[in-house]
Every structure is written in structure tokens, then in C-alpha cells.
């Protein structure tokens, strides 16, 4: 009887197995060579980083979301891409010379998704002393590694960034935020009703629109920085949803939004976001649609809070648009941010009212 390993069937099987094995070996050699090339001439600590993580992503020197949004969004997009591919990631902050709280919040919310999924990540600190002090004083690392509770709020050291994360609308969180913010700005508790309105609109927006057709799926992030020296409080609100442009462009073809966009002669995505913030889209919608046309007032209401001087320096970054709402300058970005980011400030030139809250 002919032995099995001498048969043609076995020969073909053996050929297949050995080809696969050779392919795997070559792939490993290629990867090792690539890592060795990247390690060539590097210091020992850098070599450890390269060998320990599949992705090494370098932050731009000017890591300011307001002044260098293009580069910061590109940097964040690379991290998000690594996360999507489930790759361990090392974030290189060593060369960062300038950080702002917007970029820090965006980085924090992006890196937290690694933590939530249990994906390995790490990073180094900036060489530049000011950037390093800012990141350390902000409580960035504590925020990244602590266990969160969305309803918790506590004020730490001056200039600390305080972060909340949740999926639902949490109105209760506004009370301590308003108390502490007004104390930083005016030295006493004051009512800033525009702050409550803005936060409600943004939390509601994330809950309703951050995912296609699913309510309350995406988290929102709120970070607050108390600059006690300059009596100014800045707010960064982020969600990693689909973004406003994509949310509306993703509507079904029969949606009246397409007729509205056409009637308003919207030129591009910048024009679209500007008309949305300024309420032109909502006005047109209430004239032309009948189904739930009473909705969609949230973003124009935030713009109204700027007009009423409750909040200042409002910026929006969503998908490929960066808008300075106060000055009316809207620019197209070449790198897309998958989500929505809002930034605003409140200082002593903003409006407030006496504190008349009766605690329940």
C-alpha cells in the first residue's frame, strides 16, 4: 500500500503549508528590519519605545488647537487611526513647545479610548518647561488614569483642567461648575445663564446626534481650566461622534435638509457650519418642513449666548471645519476631525447676574 506522505494529495498539502510558513517568516523579517531601521542611531530609551509599541506618533511643536488646528487635528487623527487598527501606541510629546487646553482635552479624550478598550499606550513629556508644567498642573495624567464618575466634580490646584465624561445630559454638574467658575472670575458666586444653556445644548447634541440613528451612544467630555491669575475660565467640550457636517450629510436622500441646503445656496462645509450656527438653517427648516421642525435650535442658541456676552471666544471644530464663531471666520481643514469640539472662555467682561439660587 502506498504511504500517505508519498501521495500527490500530501505533496500539495505540504507545498501549501510551507508556502504559508515562508510568507510568515518573510513578513517577520521585513517587520524586524523596519524596526531596526527606525532604531538606527537612536538613544536607548527611544529604542525601547519603538520596540515596545506598534505606533509612535509625534505631536506638533505648536500643539495649540486654536492657533494650529490643522496640525493638531492631523496628530489626533493619527492616534485615532492607530486606535481603530487596535495598535499599541506611544505618543511623543518631547518636542512640544506650546500646548493649549483645547489640544490637551482632545488628546485626553482620545487616549482615554485606549484605556477603555484595554489597548496599550504611553507617552513622554515635553522637554520645554512651560509645556511640561502646563500638562502636569492640568492633572492630565491623573484624569487619564483615574476611575471616572461623570457626576463628580472637584476643584483642585489653580489652572487645573477638570474633566467629566458621560453619555447622557447631566444638568446637575452645572451647579458646582458655575459656582467655582464665577468665584474664579468675580470672587463670588454669580449666575451665568449662558453657561448653563451652552452646556445643555452641547450635551443634548452629543446625546442625540453623535451617532447615526442611535441616541446616547457616544461620550461627551468637558474640561474646565481655571486661570486664577487672569480671572478667566476656559471650557473645552469634545465628542468623538460623527461630527456635525457628516451627521447632516448622512441623512437619507428624502430628508428636507437637502432642499434647505440648496435653497440657502450653501457653497461648502464652512458655509454650512456658519449658517447652522447663525440660525439660518433652522429658520429655513421651520419654513419648509413640517416634521419636528421645532428642533435644531441648540447650536444657534450657543451663538446667541456669545451675542448676549455670556461667553466669549467661541470656537468650533467639526469634521473639516474650524470656525471662530465670534469673529465669523470659518476655515476648511485639510485633515478631518471625527467628532465635534467646542471651546469658549468666560472672563470678567462677560455678563452675570446675582446668585439667587435656593438649594433643594
Amino acid at each position, binding site marked *: 500500500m502506498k504511504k500517505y506522505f508519498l501521495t500527490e494529495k500530501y505533496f500539495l498539502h505540504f507545498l501549501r503549508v510551507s508556502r504559508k510558513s515562508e510568507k510568515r517568516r518573510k513578513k517577520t523579517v521585513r517587520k524586524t528590519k523596519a524596526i531596526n531601521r527606525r532604531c538606527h542611531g537612536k538613544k536607548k530609551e527611544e529604542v525601547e519605545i519603538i520596540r515596545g509599541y506598534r505606533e509612535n506618533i509625534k505631536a506638533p511643536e505648536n500643539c495649540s488647537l486654536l492657533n494650529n488646528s490643522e496640525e493638531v487635528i492631523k496628530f489626533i487623527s493619527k492616534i485615532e487611526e492607530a486606535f481603530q487598527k487596535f495598535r499599541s501606541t506611544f505618543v511623543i510629546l518631547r518636542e512640544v513647545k506650546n500646548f493649549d487646553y483645547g489640544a490637551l482635552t482632545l488628546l485626553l479624550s482620545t487616549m482615554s479610548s485606549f484605556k477603555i478598550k484595554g489597548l496599550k499606550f504611553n507617552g513622554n513629556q515635553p522637554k520645554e518647561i512651560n509645556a511640561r508644567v502646563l500638562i502636569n498642573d492640568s492633572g492630565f495624567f491623573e484624569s487619564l488614569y483615574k476611575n471616572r464618575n461623570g457626576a463628580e466634580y472637584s476643584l483642585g490646584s489653580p489652572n487645573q483642567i477638570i474633566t467629566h465624561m458621560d453619555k447622557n*445630559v447631566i*444638568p446637575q454638574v452645572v451647579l458646582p461648575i458655575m459656582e467655582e467658575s464665577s468665584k474664579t472670575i468675580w470672587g463670588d458666586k454669580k*449666575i451665568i*445663564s449662558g*453657561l448653563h*444653556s451652552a452646556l445643555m*445644548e452641547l*450635551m*443634548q447634541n452629543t446625546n442625540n446626534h453623535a451617532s447615526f440613528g442611535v441616541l446616547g451612544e457616544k461620550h461627551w467630555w468637558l474640561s474646565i481650566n481655571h486661570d486664577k491669575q487672569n480671572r478667566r475660565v476656559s471650557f473645552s467640550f469634545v465628542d468623538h461622534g460623527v461630527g456635525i457636517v457628516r451627521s447632516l450629510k448622512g441623512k437619507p436622500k428624502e430628508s428636507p435638509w437637502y432642499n434647505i441646503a440648496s435653497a440657502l445656496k450653501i457653497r461648502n462645509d464652512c458655509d454650512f457650519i456658519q449658517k447652522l450656527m447663525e440660525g439660518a438653517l433652522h429658520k429655513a427648516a421651520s419654513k419648509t418642513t413640517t416634521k419636528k421642525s*421645532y428642533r435644531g435650535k441648540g447650536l444657534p442658541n450657543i451663538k446667541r449666548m456669545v451675542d448676549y456676552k455670556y461667553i466669549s471666544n467661541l470656537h468650533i471644530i467639526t469634521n473639516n471645519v474650524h470656525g471662530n464663531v465670534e469673529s465669523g471666520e470659518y476655515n476648511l481643514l485639510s485633515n478631518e476631525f471625527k467628532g465635534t469640539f467646542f471651546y469658549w472662555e468666560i472672563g470678567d467682561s462677560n455678563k452675570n447676574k446675582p446668585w439667587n439660587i435656593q438649594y433643594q
Partner: protein
Amino acid sequence: MEHSISVADFSVTPGPRLKVEGAFSGELFRETVLKPAFENAIQKGNKLTVNLDGTLGYGTSFLEEAFGGLAREKEVKSVLNNLAIIATEEPYLVEDIKEYIAKANG
């Protein structure tokens, strides 16, 4: 006898539109406070006065769901005629609410 309610007695931090979206929603306020008070006032032939002062502020969704929602349940005309709004801290809210009621059905 005058019929009046204050939103601040419901919450100093009014919340989202719907109950499923978070605490102190417009839907909850309408169901538990506004609608019973409105029906009671109508039954006794009075107007209902709603005081918006004494809270931290409002999102548009809360107000629309509370007042626009009431107009969708009752008649727009009846709500417009039998509801008075006090908003000394944020006077623009009175016009907003009138618009929500008038356009409650799209």
C-alpha cells in the same frame, strides 16, 4: 385665586428634552408639574403663570418640550391664551416660549 408655578421648585438646573436623555427633563416637568397645573387652572377658569426665574438657565430643548409639548397635547390657542410667563432674569425667553407654542405642530 391666582394659579402659579415656578420652574425653580422643579429644579434649579433644568435639563434635556426627554426623560431618557437625563435628569430634570422638559418632558418630566410637563408631565408632573406643568400639565396638571395648567389643567387645574383651566378647570377653575384661571390663567396659569409660570415663573422661569431662580434657575441657572435653560436649554432650548427643555423649554420646547415643556411648552411646545403642552401645546401639542392641548390646543395651541388654549395654551397661548391661558399661560403667562415671567422671566425677569432672561426676558427673551418669553418670546422664545411663545414661538415654541405657536409652532408646536411644525
